[in-house]
């Protein structure tokens, strides 16, 4: 089996033991890597109903067959577990030096179970695997821990870390690396924390194997050159994802004041042009020539890495109209290991709950000091932070008084930064995302708006969501490569089957990669259904109530809102096209077609299949 190392590292934190396991070829053939590996391992090994913060939860770090090769944007990895924020499947990807290092240490994935007696970290150096004491690192922010670990284990190593948020089991916590790269929005930081796992440090020095390494390197070099020559490369390098802020403002999709207004008067002060003037340098993931992290100096004189999601959620969504201040909140999140999107949503929710008199907090819209204090309270789960740190869905339930009406989430995961009052297609994308409301799977909003049919609920939109989910959530997340060359610069999809074939020697096509995507989606869906059992129904796939019931209050879209009937029709079209029944559960025939017959037998123990 070329292209994969064929080995994963098992770490039992309770016993402090590690073991290398050669995994079955079927895992690579049917699930390829990254997200595919993660969901298959969780499906096979996690007992349904497991408390996500118990030692029994399984935490997976997984790379794919392209990871670490000199191929465009191949420096990412997937982190996954059962989510303590949603109770379902949770994952995320992040760019980190840990990815190429893991592969060069001869491993494709790490599977962590148990709970260490005291704070610990996993150290991997080629063939050496050990669990080390992290008592002196516990409590440190993610920047300090990384610096310390690199001091100990060498600058060439890669580290995956949590900050205080993960340690204190705050549910809106991520895994962090390289001072600003973060992944695992559905509380993956808390899962690490629950295992007393502060960090994973990896150093690998072996050469990577491939079916035809010379050809792979040649294709990679060609790919990098093509990217450099793309028309909008220059524009991308100037603003990265921040270019879209002004676009969202114009389109009435910029999250403003907890997703209720759609227009932010101070947007010009936090947009891509303002950032360009402030940018002092750029940073990115390994193996990338599109580096998109723009570093600015924040209101406290410290560096902070910005992108659109952070700025919208910690800016317009909470009323902060000063980019330096936004950068201060952003850096705090990165240090504390808070999810910038989730935290921005929780702070906006808290501001609105305070305004409505439902909670007693000293915080108002645009309030920098109040926001800073709340971020700390979230990370340390203290005071009101102990409730809000459970995420908006659970917090709203505890607070009561109608707070659930303005908790902006799907399945418990806070929506990322696109207001969908008048974007049914993007709302469907949030509704059917396999982890809760995240844009990474199907960012159809640009297509939806620029094709000019945003008010319509045509089935064509369900097609587009599925197409994007196949490409982004299926192919990119399991080969494990960044989607940006394709979505942002138009780097052709046809490169990827070629990369895969050259790396592994296995023939494939885009159609086969779409089938892989469909298989992964069906299994993730099965995972959710197995966890929720009889409590699973189609309304779980609905976007936030606010988008239906409270029209936007300002701007070009004033008065607009989603239509329930229209959305439900769109959702049904999505189910029909996927071969899922009207509860949103894959039918027996669909599971069989996707080569998931064995998995169907297991699912039938929990729910009757159509």
């Amino acid at each position: 089996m070329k292209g994969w190392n064929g080995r994963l590292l098992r770490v039992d934190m309770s016993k402090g033991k590690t073991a290398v396991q050669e995994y079955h070829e079927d895992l690579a053939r049917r699930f390829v890597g990254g997200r595919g590996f993660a969901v298959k391992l969780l499906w096979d090994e996690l007992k349904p109903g497991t408390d996500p913060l118990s030692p029994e939860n399984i935490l997976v770090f997984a790379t794919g067959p392209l990871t670490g090769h000199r191929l465009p944007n191949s420096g990412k990895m997937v982190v996954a577990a059962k989510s303590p924020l949603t109770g379902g499947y949770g994952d995320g990807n992040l760019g980190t030096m840990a990815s190429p290092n893991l592969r060069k240490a001869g491993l494709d994935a790490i599977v962590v179970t148990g709970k260490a007696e005291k704070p610990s970290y996993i150290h991997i150096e080629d063939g050496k695997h050990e669990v080390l004491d992290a008592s002196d690192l516990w409590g440190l922010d993610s920047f300090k821990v990384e610096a310390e670990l690199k001091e100990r284990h060498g600058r060439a190593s890669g580290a995956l870390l949590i900050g205080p948020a993960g340690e204190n089991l705050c549910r809106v916590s991520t895994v962090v690396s390289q001072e600003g790269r973060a992944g695992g929005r559905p509380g993956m930081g808390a899962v690490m924390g629950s295992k007393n796992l502060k960090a994973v440090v990896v150093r690998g020095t072996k050469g990577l194997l491939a079916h035809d390494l010379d050809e792979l390197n040649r294709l990679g070099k060609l790919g990098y050159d093509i990217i450099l020559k793309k028309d909008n490369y220059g524009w991308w390098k100037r603003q990265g994802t921040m270019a879209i802020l002004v676009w969202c403002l114009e389109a009435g999709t910029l999250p403003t004041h907890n997703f209720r207004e759609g227009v932010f008067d101070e947007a010009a002060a936090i947009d891509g042009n303002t950032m360009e003037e402030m940018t002092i340098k750029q940073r990115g993931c390994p193996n990338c020539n599109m580096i998109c992290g723009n570093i600015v100096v924040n209101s406290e004189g410290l560096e902070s890495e910005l992108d659109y999601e952070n700025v919208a959620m910690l800016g317009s969504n909470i009323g902060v109209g000063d980019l330096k201040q936004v950068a201060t909140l952003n850096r705090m999140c990165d240090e504390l290991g808070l999810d910038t999107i989730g935290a921005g949503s929780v702070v906006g929710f808290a501001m609105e709950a305070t305004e409505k008199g439902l909670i007693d907090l000293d915080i108002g819209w645009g309030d920098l000091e109040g926001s800073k204090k709340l971020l700390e309270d979230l990370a340390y789960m203290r005071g009101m932070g102990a409730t809000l740190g459970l995420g908006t869905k659970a917090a709203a339930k505890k607070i009561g008084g109608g707070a659930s009406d303005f908790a902006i989430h799907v399945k418990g995961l806070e929506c990322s930064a696109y207001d969908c009052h008048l974007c049914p297609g993007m709302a469907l994308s949030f509704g059917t995302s396999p982890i809760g409301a995240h844009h990474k799977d199907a960012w159809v909003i640009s297509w939806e708006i620029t094709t000019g049919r945003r008010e319509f609920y045509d089935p064509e939109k369900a097609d587009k969501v599925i197409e994007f989910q196949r490409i982004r959530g299926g192919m990119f997340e399991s080969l494990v490569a960044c989607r940006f060359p394709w979505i942002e610069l138009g780097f052709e999809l046809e490169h990827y089957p070629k990369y895969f074939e050259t790396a592994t020697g296995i023939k494939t096509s885009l159609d086969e990669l779409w089938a892989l995507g469909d298989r992964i989606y069906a299994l993730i869906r099965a995972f959710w259904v197995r966890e929720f059992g009889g409590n699973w129904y189609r309304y779980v796939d609905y976007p936030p109530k606010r988008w239906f019931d409270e029209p936007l209050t300002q701007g070009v879209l004033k008065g607009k809102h989603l239509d329930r009937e229209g959305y439900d029709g769109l959702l049904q079209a999505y189910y029909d096209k996927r071969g899922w029944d009207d509860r949103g559960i894959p039918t027996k025939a669909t599971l069989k077609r996707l080569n998931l017959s064995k998995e169907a037998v297991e699912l039938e123990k929990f729910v009757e299949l159509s």
Partner: protein
Amino acid sequence: MKVRVRVFGDLVPVLGRNHIVDLEDGETVGSLTNRMAGKAGLKRRGYLGNYRVSGGDLAILVNGRNIDLLEGLETSLQDGDEIVLMPPAAGG
């Protein structure tokens, strides 16, 4: 009559950001984009920068509504209208 035109993304370096454009009565979105291309000295017919004016490359909004939902490039303009030229966005 006068209309306001707002330009986004990588079309800004090509056309400039905000414009007030004087039009004759009865002019359409198509004639407006021709005028703008002419003013910017663009030679390639039917294009603004790298984007084809018709055909879905470029979103053109009139008072917040995409011209595909109106009469396309034939959509006639009124005094005070606001037109947005929006290339496909990067960001997600």
